[in-house]
Every structure is written in structure tokens, then in C-alpha cells.
């Protein structure tokens, strides 16, 4: 099982959560067409192999995202929601939020100012 993805250009790792039923994943560095496949494999393992259905993606350390990275989220959100789960996005830097906003992502994905608020939203079943 891949515990984290850590290469020179992109990192994602599972971090501790205040609720063990909720998985918090911290993204760092740059998510583009080169690094997106690694991110996709990592997410797929969490969702399919580990049966993680309540995911919070923490963006506060992410420096860059392109449509390739957003495509990974779009490719898996339907699967997660089909099993009563969700993928919530948290702590987006302004320039990252700008990209998601251009594509209308806030209509489809719930976005929270902090990771803890996203976790609490799962607990409150929002």
C-alpha cells in the first residue's frame, strides 16, 4: 500500500484526523499532468483498496494545480458519492481557488476554509 506519494514535484500524504472515520489527505507542491497520475493512483488506493469514503483534501501547501489535477478529483468523486461518501476540499490558497472557480468547481465540490471545518461538516453530515 502506498502510504504517501513523495517525489520532487508533488506530495500527498495521509495526516491524522480528529475523527478516525474521516481521512485527511495533505497535498503539497505542484499538481500537473506529470504528477497527476501518481495522485490518482494514491487516491484510488485509498478509495478502492482501503474503502475510504469520507475524504478531506487539504490544499494549504499546494503551490500549483492545472486541469490535469482537477480531472483526478472529477474522475473519483462520483464513485465516492455513489457509496454515500464525499470528497471535501479545504484550505485552498487564493490562486488555487481561482482556478477551481473558473471551472465552476464550487458548485460541485464543497469547499471549506479549514480542514477542521471540513471534518466537522462530515460529522454533522452536511
Amino acid at each position, binding site marked *: 500500500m502506498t502510504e504517501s506519494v513523495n517525489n520532487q*514535484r508533488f506530495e500527498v500524504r495521509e495526516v491524522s484526523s480528529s475523527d478516525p472515520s474521516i481521512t485527511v489527505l495533505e497535498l503539497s507542491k*505542484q499538481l*500537473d*499532468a*506529470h504528477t497527476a497520475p501518481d495522485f490518482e493512483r494514491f487516491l484510488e488506493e485509498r478509495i478502492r483498496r482501503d474503502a475510504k469514503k469520507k475524504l478531506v483534501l487539504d490544499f494549504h501547501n499546494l503551490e*500549483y494545480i*492545472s*486541469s*490535469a489535477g*482537477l*480531472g483526478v478529483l*472529477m*474522475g473519483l*468523486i*462520483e464513485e465516492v458519492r455513489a457509496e454515500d461518501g464525499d470528497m471535501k476540499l479545504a484550505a485552498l490558497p487564493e*490562486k488555487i481557488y*481561482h*482556478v477551481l472557480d*473558473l*471551472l*465552476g*468547481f464550487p*458548485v*460541485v465540490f464543497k469547499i471549506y476554509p479549514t480542514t477542521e471545518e471540513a471534518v466537522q461538516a462530515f460529522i454533522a453530515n452536511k
Partner: protein
Amino acid sequence: MSRITRSFAANYAHLHDVRQFVVECAEDAKLTAQLRDNLILAVDEATTNIISHASTVAPHDIVCSCEYDRQQFVCELSYRTEEFSVPTEPPSIEEIEERVRSFKRGGLGVFLMHQLVQHVSYEREGDRNIIRLTQTVQ
């Protein structure tokens, strides 16, 4: 007007290098952070499209040129290929919103490119395709 040119391998692993090149030119042109970030992403999306769609791109043959003065910043990507094969027409905002709602990935990059810079043009010169991304600075 300043013009700086660099060649990159047609490989996703070099997207970071392409972006870094645009950063250097944008900083030399003293662009605002917003314009700089928009250009970086637009060039990334254009380069990604070239690599993913133009299957016959000669290796080590994406030539990126940034030309700029106080009024305008133009980034040009040219590459040798048999035909013009990258998507050129951006989907509408309504199509993009529907694709996002339906969790369909395609077309996001082309749409973003057209949203991020003022003008995108596609030309063919000899055996090379040329994509130009133009942004007015003032």
C-alpha cells in the same frame, strides 16, 4: 521588445521547466502576480495539450518563446508535427459547467487557456504548428 526562446522535450516531465521559463520571463517583464499566474497556467495547459494530442511531435521540439514589452506579453509555442491536431475551439462556459456537474474531464484545459489570457491563436507555418497566447499588460 524582449524575446527569449527556449526548447523543451515533448514530455510531461518537462512541464515544470516550461512553467519556470514563463516565470522568469514574466518577472523580467514585471507582470503582476495575477497576470503571471494566469500566463503560467495557460502555457501549461497549451503545452499539455500539445504533448497529449500531437502524437507525432518530434522529441525535444517544443519551442517556447516569450516576447514582451510594456504593452503586451506574448508566449508562443511551436512544434513540428504532421497536422494540426490539438483541440482549438474552447467549449462554452455552459458546456464546461455541464461537464463539471457530470464529472466529465475533457475540455477543461482548452477552456482554461482561453479564460486565462486575452487571445489565443493557432497557425501553421511549414511543418510547424504555432499556438500564441497574448495578454495585454497595460
